[in-house]
């Protein structure tokens, strides 16, 4: 299994019985089970505070789950990090936009994992950075300090960093928030190209209208996984009402226990 999924093929993500508790002792996610199928674009949908970012950070290995197991392409998260399998495009409010750094240097940080300890870029690193900037149409802005960009340009800069990193799995946390329709359309086109090239993409979004246009699969989340599957199956009126309608958590808990019992 491990060696079957080499870096040239597509990689999936499996989340098995994941629970995350923050230091304020609040359970942010519990008993979450899902699979992000290899080579798909999977949409992650849920209201604010439902744990989308928490799920992303668990998959990326930024926080330590209190329970559960995550594998990326069959590898544990730490191995996947070391092999540059996963790239992450953070939510806008997680970035210090006043940091004295320009777009080119941010994208170059995507290459650090390939460099020696002194992080001296090779010709290849520079070429990949320029190509990544080109792909997101940001070459002209490469000398801009990151705070001097529009919302869409900011997202594209970090997407370029993910491209430069050449991760087979790309996670994007609300990439369309604060982005105009035209830019969103362009980013979606790019995501579809990346899928074509064998990337696995997990993207959280509040733009419910566009999901069926580009997401092969959808995961509905509200503190646990409520539904997941192909967009046609999952993205139903009924499921959305359950996700956003504010069912009391207790009934959700019961539901997840039941499903556990069934297994």
């Amino acid at each position: 299994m491990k060696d079957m999924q080499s870096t040239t093929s597509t990689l999936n993500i499996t989340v098995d019985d994941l629970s995350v508790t923050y230091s304020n002792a609040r359970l942010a996610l519990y008993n979450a089970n899902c699979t992000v199928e290899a080579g798909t674009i999977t949409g992650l949908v849920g209201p604010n505070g439902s744990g989308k970012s928490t799920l992303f950070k668990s998959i990326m290995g930024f926080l330590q789950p209190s329970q559960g197991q995550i594998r990326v392409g069959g590898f544990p998260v730490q191995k996947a990090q070391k092999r540059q399998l996963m790239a992450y495009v953070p939510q806008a409010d997680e970035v210090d936009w006043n940091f004295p750094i320009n777009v080119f240097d941010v994208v170059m940080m995507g290459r650090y994992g390939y460099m020696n300890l002194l992080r001296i870029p090779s010709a290849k690193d520079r070429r990949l950075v320029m190509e990544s900037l080109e792909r997101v149409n940001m070459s002209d802005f490469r000398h801009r300090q990151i705070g001097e960009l529009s919302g869409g340009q900011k997202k594209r800069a970090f997407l370029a960093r993910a491209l430069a990193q050449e991760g087979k799995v790309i996670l994007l946390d609300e990439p369309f928030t604060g982005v105009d329709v035209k830019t969103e359309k362009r980013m979606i086109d790019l995501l579809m190209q990346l899928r074509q090239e064998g990337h696995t993409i997990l993207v959280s979004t509040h733009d419910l209208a566009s999901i069926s246009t580009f997401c092969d699969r959808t995961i509905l989340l509200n503190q646990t996984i409520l539904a997941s599957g192909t967009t046609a199956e999952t993205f139903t009126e009924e499921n959305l009402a359950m996700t956003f309608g504010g069912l009391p958590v207790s009934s959700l808990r019961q539901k997840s226990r039941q499903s556990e019992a069934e297994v």
Partner: protein
Amino acid sequence: MSDLVAAIPLWDWLVEPLQYGFLRQAIWVSAFVGFVCAALSCYITLKGWSLMGDAVSHAVVPGVVVAYALNIPFAVGAFLFGFGATVAIGYVKSKTRLKEDAVIGVVFTGFFAFGIVLVTKIPSNIDLFHILFGNVLGISQQDIVQTLIAGVITLTVIFLRRKDLLLFCFDPNHAKAIGLNTEFIYYTLLSVLALTIVTALQTAGIILVIAMLVTPGSIAYLLTDRFDHMLGISIASSVFSCVLGTYLSYHFDVSTGGSIVVLLTLLFVITMVFAPRYGILAQRSKQRSNPIAAEAQGQELSRDQA
């Protein structure tokens, strides 16, 4: 002609002290210290670690006392206790539900108080006043050697690891995502912080060393959006203040550490008011010329804070 006559005594007054070896020595030592502190200052201000710097500087006191008592170099004792305090802070924070600033406050005052108790109990010829406020004019050759060693190690580590340190300050999550050992970078930055404080101990003293670690970086941050420029401005303002402050402290017979920090603070105030983009005046004229944009920016700011 009369101008010239008047100018000669002034010139003498300015140059005369430079004949003294001890003053020349104090000037270059403090310039060196200013250089080291200013380099690290850029990382500390961007990371938001000012309070951590304050903590480490106070926590070294027992180390200095113990080192003198055991007759080992003061730098070794100071470093061990300074770095030990950061480890203690990390440990307490991970084991309790306290917020970081409370943990830092508890740990460093504990270390500091322990040091004060030791100073007053262990018979030694340590002058508490010199530890607290520095004494670069009376610095011994031995202490200079220790200052130089600590400073050179600091600069070397910063220079070799500068890219990783900057990435760690900017986006530690990304550092993790690409498989870097962020724990190691975290402790690298902390140990460099402790070493820098050891470097600055003799010049600025424990109480004021935090100014040398925060103010130069803050001045530079208000003046530029590029990290390499920030480094240059930080170092220039710090070395300038150290040289002039040491020199003036001799002339007016006032505390050296005090003069340096007063000069740094003056530079900061001037920058805060007149900085071309981020100064108070520039911000105000921007608002006046473009009230709508200013309002939008204000909204964005409050959203950022939310």
